[in-house]
């Protein structure tokens, strides 16, 4: 199965991973073989079968609305690439 180059580029954009021009065809090929694997799913009839998102039949626990997390900014920002005045700094979006 082959995937279009443009498809790979779209996926790369959606997942924000830069893919080298040179490697795009290799990536496309490998992805293609994985998709061949998963296409085996199409052979089975799943009419009327419910989709399972969680293996256990449990329901969501609800948490009391009380503050339990106090200010830990210093500890949490100690590992940040760039901060200033308590803000995380990232390069601007170029509009």
């Amino acid at each position, binding site marked *: 199965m082959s995937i279009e180059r443009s498809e790979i580029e779209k*996926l790369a954009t959606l997942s924000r991973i830069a893919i080298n021009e040179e490697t795009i065809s290799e990536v496309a090929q490998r992805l293609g073989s*994985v998709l061949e694997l998963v296409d085996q*799913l199409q052979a089975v009839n*799943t009419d009327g079968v419910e*989709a399972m998102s969680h*293996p256990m039949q449990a329901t969501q626990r609800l948490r009391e609305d009380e503050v339990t997390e106090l200010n830990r900014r210093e500890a949490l920002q100690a590992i940040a690439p760039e901060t200033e005045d308590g803000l995380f700094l990232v390069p601007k979006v170029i509009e």
Partner: protein
Amino acid sequence: MHNLTIAELVKGLQSKEFTSVELTQHFLDRIANLDPAYNAVITVTTEQALQAAAAADQRLADGNAPDLCGVPILHKDIFCTDGVRTSCGSKMLDNFIPPYNATVVENFEKAGAVVLGKTNMDEFAMGSSNETSFYGAVKNPWATDSVPGGSSGGSAAAVAARLAPGATATDTGGSIRQPAALCGISGIKPTYGRVSRWGMIAFASSLDQGGPMARTAEDCALLLNCMASYDDKDSTCIDREVPDYTANLNRSVKGLRIGVPKEYFSEGLHPGTEEAVRAALAKLQEQGAELVEISLPNSALSVPAYYVIAPAEASANLSRFDGARYGYRCENPKDLEDMYCRSRAEGFGEEVQRRILIGTYCLSAGYYDAYYGKSQQVRQLIQQDFVSAFENVDLIMGPTCPSPAFKFGAKGDDPVAMYLEDIYTIATNLAGLPGMSIPCGMVEGKPVGLQIIGNYFDEAGILNAAHQYQQASDWHTQAPEGIA
């Protein structure tokens, strides 16, 4: 000392045969001397370990020692350890020092265990050979030209080489069981929701489970007693009492009904592996268990379904790694998009990138129903297969892997060849069932694993059968050469 089991170590520490400091130093020395050959450990926490050992010795002396007081262990580098680098085998987190502990780590701290360090793993737990780690491949102590399995290859190799008596690990599609099998040790993946995922870096949230690796079933039971807990910080954690997993180890397997899926003994299964597994089943029969042939008809769909669901969930779980708040950020990003795209391209290895792309594809508009939607339905079918089977049998057994450890690079360029390694283990994760692997033979000097799958929350049943088998066999006592 390194040939003692955890059960024996606990006794030895309590009877003052040796101290935790002695024990800890012993293992630290072994890691320093032997690990260069295996590359199983990424970070060694020497100072903290010795400090913890000293504190443990004090508690042992005071007589108020918790269950695993003074026992050295290793944590797979997927569990966040407060103040200690947690890399997940990735360049993306090479500089990540979490300011919090995973619940599993907390549990071991409370139990008095001593953490020797963090073990190597496939990057972000994606792999079956531990070849994808940023820190280099792990070598199988039984054959250093071969893989130890993955993603918990480091933990498995470390236990096999007696660098630690036990280690924590995680399993999403077989990542505890498969390396346990290839390294000749015991490892159990509990029921989904048995062990808290808080602080356990997420790969595929509905499949991931943490579990122990050690050399015996009894040791796994001791470690699981500690790892399993209800944690209200994990919404998917099930609130159910944790039994003492060692309580029923000695129950006889007489009358135990063991299902043997015919689909697990088909084409692609290495004859040596089949022989060893069948011999193990025969041994259990000798011990009084009954073998029942069963069918899990949708088995073949488990790999395709998994390779949609796991990458899909991973593609979202890994979006947070963007260079903004922690972890790797590329140098001199031109703008925001450049920061994202280059940090992720440089920080993630090839397999991780591939799975993110697949996951993104399967969730895309136009493809969702055919891939993700379909897989979730297939998952239901696979679960139903097991539920039906368990109406008739107590445990299900078969080979853990299709063959013994393969050589590095043997799976070549084709990712799918690697994915098929997990063919027997994946369905258990899809269904959320508990599963274990224990050593049951050797083929050309490489270990073979017997897989034991149990019904929901029947870890005790699995461990019992495993323990009984280990009473009547000695595969689990064998050690690779050169690790004395």
